[in-house]
């Protein structure tokens, strides 16, 4: 559905250079530290910025040439941008009705009410959680086959986050052929939703893996200095020095479970992936 082919974008000293693919019917996550280039990728897919090199295509069309009808098929929730804060929900509904031919007003009204979004309240009086829910509901309200979500749960409490994730899960179960691209800092969001993960660091993709593979095959090894010397490092992706010795990150958990039964082996988590792949040696 979305293909990014050698996208290059330069911002002063920062250079983004990535290739990736979001196939039909998959949920893809992009993770990485602040400033890694996640939002730049999202903006390139949405045609908000022009690539310096490379191509970004959605359903075979360059994103810079997407028509209004093409854009109507993409649901977008951006982390720091939405409807004007002086509008209320009635204004939003009126605009969406005219903008999107497939706008499902019943769905939108029903879900806004269920999420406690007051219809007469100005958006400037909404809480952070209400803004986030509204952004996601707007993206879900017009039966899009592609959803682009930039940090949809950033800055929210657990309850609000879960409610947003539940909305996305419900949408996925109702629209099985829908694709989602999601960026997040919160590993549990990615673990519970995404089929595959791209880890981006300093403008480059340092890892692309299925979420299930990360959770089953990746592991943290905790070893003292002596054990570290004896350790077969063929499958060690990254190592970090700690007070007690070394923390090693591997994508072959079973190899170390079988051959080094005495060392501490912990299941890999997305947080470990980010920390070890972008901070270790």
């Amino acid at each position, binding site marked *: 559905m979305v293909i990014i082919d050698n996208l290059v974008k330069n911002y002063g000293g920062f250079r983004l250079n990535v290739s990736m693919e979001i196939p039909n019917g998959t949920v893809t996550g992009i993770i990485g530290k602040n400033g890694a280039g996640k939002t730049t990728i999202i903006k390139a897919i*949405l045609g908000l*910025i022009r690539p310096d090199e490379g191509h970004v295509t959605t359903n075979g069309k360059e994103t810079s040439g997407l028509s209004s009808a093409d*854009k109507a098929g993409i649901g977008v929730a951006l982390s720091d*941008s*939405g409807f004007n804060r*002086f509008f209320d929900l009635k204004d939003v509904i009126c605009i969406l009705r005219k*903008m999107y031919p497939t706008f499902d007003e019943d769905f939108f009204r029903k879900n806004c009410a269920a999420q406690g979004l007051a219809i007469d309240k100005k958006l400037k009086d909404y809480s952070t959680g209400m803004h986030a829910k509204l952004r996601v509901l707007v993206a879900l309200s017009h039966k899009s086959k592609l959803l682009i979500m930039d940090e949809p749960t950033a800055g929210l409490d657990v309850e609000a986050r879960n409610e947003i994730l539940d909305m996305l899960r419900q949408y996925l179960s109702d629209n099985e052929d829908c694709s989602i691209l999601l960026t997040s800092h919160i590993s549990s969001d990615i673990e519970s939703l995404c089929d595959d993960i791209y880890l981006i660091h300093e403008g480059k993709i340092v890892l692309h893996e299925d979420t299930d593979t990360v959770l089953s095959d990746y592991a943290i090894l905790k070893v003292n200095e002596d054990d570290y010397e004896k350790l077969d490092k063929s499958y060690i992706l990254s190592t970090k020095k700690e007070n007690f010795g070394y923390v090693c990150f591997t994508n072959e958990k079973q190899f170390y479970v079988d051959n080094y039964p005495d060392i501490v082996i912990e299941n890999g988590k997305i947080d470990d992936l980010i920390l070890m792949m972008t901070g270790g040696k």
Partner: protein
Amino acid sequence: MLGLLVKDLRIALTRKFALLIILVIALIMGTSMEGPFIIGYVTMIALMLAVGTIIYDEMDNGYDFMMTMPLTRKTYVREKYLFCLLSALVAWLVGAILTCAAYIIRQNASALLEDIPISLVLIPVLFILPAVMIPLQLKLGAERSRIATYIIFGFIAGLIFMGKKLLDESDLPAKIEPALNSFPPVAVVVAITAFGLLVAFISYLCSVRIMMKKEF
């Protein structure tokens, strides 16, 4: 396009109180001043409010989300000019109604037939305001475009002042006045309208170019 027009109309309606005050001021001016000044005043205020919707679009990174909606950058620019034109037409109509009321109150209804049609020329003349401000706001953003607008209109005012001073000191006005008076009023209106359209078209092309290059 329709969605954008609805959006801008909704933005305008968020300033209901300001619109009401403007109408009250217009009414007071209309009943106390001679001539169709009120039409120009209301039309100019409407154009300023219409151009001001760009500031609301830009607010809180609003462009980022808006440009993901089903519209192209060209459509956005077109809509801005169309919204300004529609605002000017509606405001002109409101101004004309208020002027009619004021003339009738002052029992000067016979002047209506002369003053109201000729005041239509105010629309292309005043459209120079959005023609200057729209590309500036798209290029520079709300804050910097405001300063640029002051500089440009200050420069225009300076030119007019200097020109007037030079003309006052020369005998040129006396020489060209008969020639100017010989033009039929319709030709003058057509010429001014054509000039306004040309300025608006050049401004539109500049705005499209700015918007196409813009990154969000």
